[in-house]
């Protein structure tokens, strides 16, 4: 009774091993990208992903799949609506289609876009205001053994209206392989060199370089909970070695008038020590400044101080305050 079941198990193992061996060396070439160093705000730019397929299939086996490609860009670019992805290859050219949010990536159980964000993260960027967007070719392509090809995926996308320094993420993969965590053959991803967006609106958003002071989320209103961080390891300041760091902060309204200030050293304004030499404070601006219902904050100016309030660090380790403007778009 047990023998047929055992034989069946052995058969599955043999078939599984054979399939693994057949496809073991099949995969994608390393991914490189061409990204301009600079772009003007709102401009349409072109990014190109360069990769290839290296099918190593024994016997007369075939490998049929669709090309999957994606990118990680700032949410403010609204790339889902304006990006166009096309590919060129010896096996054919085509336009890629955005994978629907409702389609689940089988390994993670998340949408493809969420799965890619979970798997690839934000790379060398330090502040997270990014989204991964994944596309798939409309046609399938069949490969025979040693049918090596190179292919390019071209991304045409508007860069948004904000000044920024950013490193973009890119990914190519095979549709039938999904996003398996241990797979290194069928998914290739990389992050670009720094792209600078100039002539745009507002303060420079620097995703790349370590900052003494940062604010999360990058986009928020005065009714969000925001996190102000002091990264004392970025450069030497008068607060070096201090264990207790406090926040001095002023709130300004739409007329740019100062409507509230909290500049005393107390529990409310004390930062919490985080990893490494990082300190942070989470606050809900409307409650922190005890605003009335008709008051609204448009921006903050702030410094970090020691317990005495005499040692003060401002933007770029100067006497100028750090500034943060509330905006949702």
């Amino acid at each position, binding site marked *: 009774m047990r023998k047929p079941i055992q034989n069946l198990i052995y058969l599955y193992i043999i078939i599984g091993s054979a399939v693994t061996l057949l496809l073991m060396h099949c995969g994608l070439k390393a991914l490189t990208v061409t990204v301009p160093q600079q772009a003007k705000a709102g401009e349409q730019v072109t990014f190109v992903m360069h990769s290839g397929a290296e099918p190593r299939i024994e016997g007369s086996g075939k490998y049929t799949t669709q090309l999957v490609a994606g990118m990680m860009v700032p*949410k403010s670019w609204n790339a889902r609506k304006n990006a166009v992805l096309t590919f060129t290859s010896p096996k054919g050219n085509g336009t890629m289609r955005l994978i629907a949010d409702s389609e689940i990536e089988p390994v993670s159980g998340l949408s493809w876009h969420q799965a890619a964000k979970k798997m690839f993260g934000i790379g060398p960027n330090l502040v997270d205001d990014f989204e991964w967007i994944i596309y798939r070719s409309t046609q399938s392509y069949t490969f025979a053994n040693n049918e090596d090809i190179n292919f390019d995926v071209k991304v045409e996308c508007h860069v948004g209206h904000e000044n920024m320094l950013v490193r973009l993420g890119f990914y190519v993969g095979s549709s039938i392989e999904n996003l398996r965590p241990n797979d290194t053959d069928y998914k290739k991803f990389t992050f670009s060199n720094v792209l600078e967006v100039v002539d745009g609106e507002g303060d420079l958003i620097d995703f790349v370089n370590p900052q003494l002071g940062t604010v999360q989320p990058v*986009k928020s*209103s005065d*009714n*969000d*909970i925001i996190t102000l961080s002091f990264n004392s390891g970025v450069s030497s300041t008068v607060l070096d070695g201090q264990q207790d760091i406090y926040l001095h902060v002023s709130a300004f309204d739409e007329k740019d008038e100062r409507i509230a200030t909290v500049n005393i050293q107390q529990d409310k304004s004390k930062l919490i020590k985080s990893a490494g030499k990082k300190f942070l404070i989470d606050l*809900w601006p*409307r409650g922190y400044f005890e605003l009335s219902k008709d008051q609204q904050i448009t921006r903050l100016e702030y410094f970090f101080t020691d317990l005495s309030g005499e040692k003060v660090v401002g933007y770029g380790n100067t006497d100028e305050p750090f500034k943060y403007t509330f905006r949702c778009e």
Partner: protein
Amino acid sequence: MKFNLSKIWILLIVGFTLFTACEDDMSSITSQEAFKDITGSWQVIQLKRNGEDLSERMNLHDFRMDFKEDGTYSLAEKLPFLTQGTGNYELNDPQYPFSLILTSEQQESHTVKFQFPVVDGRRQLSLTFSLGCTSNSYEYNFERVNQDQ
């Protein structure tokens, strides 16, 4: 081998007998999804912003919300929440709710994503919504105050 086969047959026959014996009783049992009762005082035990857990860093001790039997709610004090003070509440479906509708005294209505899971044997109330920018999502997880009593 023969012994094993006969053992299996006996087990199958006994199992089948037991199953068919219960058939009438089983088919007569009807199950109805219970109405979700959220009345009581709820305390925030976890707060996530865009998936990041802020609970360890923020003082949530005083963050309480009361749902009363008369359909009104009240928030303990001025808190980062969709609404302040008091108002009325309603589940979109008392048996299979997926949203909670909060209407403030000023008649401002907010619909928030609602979940009512049991975590580690304790009932939780989970509300998800945006406070400020729509791009920022907050998940508040509550537990009933004095749930053990």
